[in-house]
C-alpha cells in the first residue's frame, strides 16, 4: 500500500509514480520506456493509441465520372486509406454529434479530384491531386499526407488515354476502432521483460532457447537473470518499451498525448455519468453476502452472464449434451472473471 499512498500524493516523489525515458524521436517515431506503472495501465495506453485516437479520413465518395479500369468501390477504398493531416482535430466534431443534417464544415472536410488523361503516356493520379475545400477549421486539416521527396503522395490510380476520374470526397473524423483507416499509427511496439524472467513467454527451442533466440534490443538495459536464480513468483513487469510509429496524420508525440487524453475523456465521461445518476438505477435487492459469489451457478442464475452460460436450462442451446455446452462459454464452472 506504500506505493498507493505515495502515488496519490499530489507531488510525486522521485522514485514513485510513472517515469518515462525517451530514447529516440522524430516526426514519425517515438521510442520510449514507461516504467513504475502496472502492465494494465501500459497496455491501456497502447490500446488507446492504437484504436481510439481520433483522426480524419475520407469516409464518403461521390463518383461522377470513372472510366478508369478500377471499380468505383475500389477507388473509394483507396481514397479512404490515404492519410490526411489531422492537426487540431479537436476543432472538428464527429458528424454523428453535429447539429447538421448530413455533414458541414464543422464536422467534415471536402476533397475533390478531377483527372483526365489526354496524352499517350499512362497518367498517374496521386494524393497531391486531391483539392481540399476551403471551409475547414484550420488550413492544414484534411491535407493529404505527403512524405516522398517528389511530393506526390499515395498513388490513387492510373489512367490511359481518354480515361477520366472525377469525384468528390467527404472526410470525417473517426477512430480506428471503427475502421483502421482512422489509425494514427502504423504500428506500436510494446515490449517488457527482455530476459523473459517472468516466464510470460514460453520459448520454443531445439537445444537451448538462450542460444537460439535473438536478444531483444532492450536486453542490455535490464539485468539478465543470475545463474541458477530461482523463479520469483512475486515479480511483476514494471518497465515497458514502446515504439510508436506514426503515419504522418498526427505528429508522433501527439499520438501519445492524445492517447492519454482519450483515456481521460473516457474517464471524465463516466465520472460525469455517475454524478448525474446518483444510485445508477440499480436496485439493491437487499444485502448480499460476498460469499454468495463463490457458487458460480447461483451467480449465473442472476441472469447477467452470457446467454451460453446457462448451466441448468433445458433450452435448445443449454446443457452439456450439445456441442455448445462444451464451449468455453458454456462452462458453468468458469465465469470469465479476470
Amino acid at each position, binding site marked *: 500500500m506504500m506505493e498507493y499512498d505515495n502515488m496519490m500524493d499530489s507531488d510525486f516523489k522521485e522514485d514513485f509514480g510513472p517515469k518515462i525515458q525517451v530514447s529516440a524521436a522524430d516526426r514519425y517515431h517515438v521510442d520510449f520506456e514507461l516504467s513504475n506503472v502496472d502492465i494494465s495501465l501500459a497496455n491501456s495506453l497502447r490500446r488507446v493509441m492504437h484504436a481510439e485516437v481520433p483522426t480524419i479520413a475520407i469516409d464518403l465518395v461521390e463518383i461522377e465520372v470513372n472510366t478508369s479500369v478500377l471499380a468505383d468501390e475500389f477507388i473509394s477504398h483507396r481514397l479512404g486509406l490515404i492519410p490526411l493531416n489531422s492537426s487540431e482535430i479537436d476543432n472538428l466534431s464527429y458528424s454523428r454529434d453535429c447539429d447538421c443534417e448530413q455533414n458541414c464544415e464543422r464536422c467534415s472536410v471536402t476533397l475533390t479530384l478531377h483527372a483526365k488523361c489526354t496524352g499517350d503516356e499512362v497518367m498517374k493520379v496521386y494524393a497531391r491531386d486531391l483539392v481540399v475545400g476551403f471551409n475547414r477549421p484550420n488550413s492544414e486539416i484534411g491535407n493529404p499526407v505527403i512524405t516522398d521527396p517528389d511530393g506526390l503522395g499515395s498513388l490513387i490510380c492510373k489512367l490511359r488515354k481518354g480515361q477520366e476520374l472525377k469525384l468528390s470526397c467527404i472526410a470525417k473524423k473517426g477512430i480506428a476502432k471503427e475502421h483502421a483507416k482512422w489509425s494514427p499509427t502504423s504500428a506500436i511496439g510494446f515490449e517488457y521483460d527482455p530476459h523473459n524472467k517472468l516466464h510470460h513467454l514460453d520459448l520454443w527451442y531445439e537445444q537451448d532457447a538462450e542460444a537460439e533466440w535473438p536478444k531483444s534490443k532492450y536486453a542490455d538495459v535490464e539485468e539478465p537473470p543470475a545463474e541458477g536464480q530461482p523463479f520469483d513468483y512475486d515479480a511483476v513487469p514494471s518497465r515497458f518499451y514502446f515504439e510508436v510509429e506514426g503515419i504522418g496524420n498526427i505528429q508522433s508525440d501527439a499520438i501519445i498525448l492524445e492517447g492519454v487524453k482519450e483515456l481521460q475523456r473516457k474517464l471524465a*465521461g463516466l465520472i460525469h455519468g455517475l454524478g448525474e445518476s446518483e444510485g*445508477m438505477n*440499480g436496485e439493491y435487492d437487499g444485502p448480499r453476502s*460476498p460469499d454468495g459469489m463463490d457458487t458460480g451457478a447461483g451467480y449465473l442464475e442472476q441472469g447477467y452472464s452470457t*446467454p451460453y452460460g446457462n448451466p441448468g436450462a433445458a433450452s435448445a442451446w443449454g446443457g452439456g449434451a450439445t456441442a455448445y455446452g462444451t464451449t468455453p462459454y458454456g462452462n458453468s464452472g468458469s465465469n470469465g472473471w479476470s
Partner: protein
Amino acid sequence: MPGRTKTRDDAPEEVDTSMDDAPTSAQQPAEEENGDAMQEDEEEGEEDPFEEEEEPQRVRILPGSSETAASFEFLKEGHTLGNALRYIIMKNPDVEFCAYAIPHPSEDKMNLRIQTYDTTTAAAALAKGLQDLEDLCDVVADEFWTQREKFEATPEQVRKRQEEAERRQAAQAS
C-alpha cells in the same frame, strides 16, 4: 450454416429451432415488463407511447448488489478501461476485491465487480478509481511531455536539428 440441401417445399419448418426456445439475452433490458426481449423484437411497429427515448445509461449496477459488494455494467467499454480501472481500484486499501470481465465478445459491455471493506461503498470505490486513474493519466502525460522536451534538448538532438536546417538551406540555395 450448412448450405440448403432440400428444395424450399421440402424443408419442414419444424427443423428450425423455434425462436421461443432460444435463450433470451441474459442482459435484461432495464425496466422491461415482459422480460422476453426476443419476443419484443418481433412485434415490430408496436411501440409503447409512454416509453421515453433516453440516452442509454453508460453504467448501471447489476441486480444482487449491496452497498459494499456490487457489480457494475459498463456499456461501450472494454479491456482498455476495464483492466486499468481494475488495477487502480485494487490499489485502494479500502477495497477487498475487484475484477472485470467482458461476458461476451459480441456484446459491447464490460462488467466490473467491486467488494469493499466496511470503510467505504462499492460505488464510492468506483468513483475514486475513475478519479485516481484520471490523475494517473495526468502524471503520465506530464511526464511524457517533460521527457520529450528533455530529449529534444540533448546535444545530439540539437546537432541533428542543426544539420537538418543546413541541409534544407543548401537544398533551397541550389
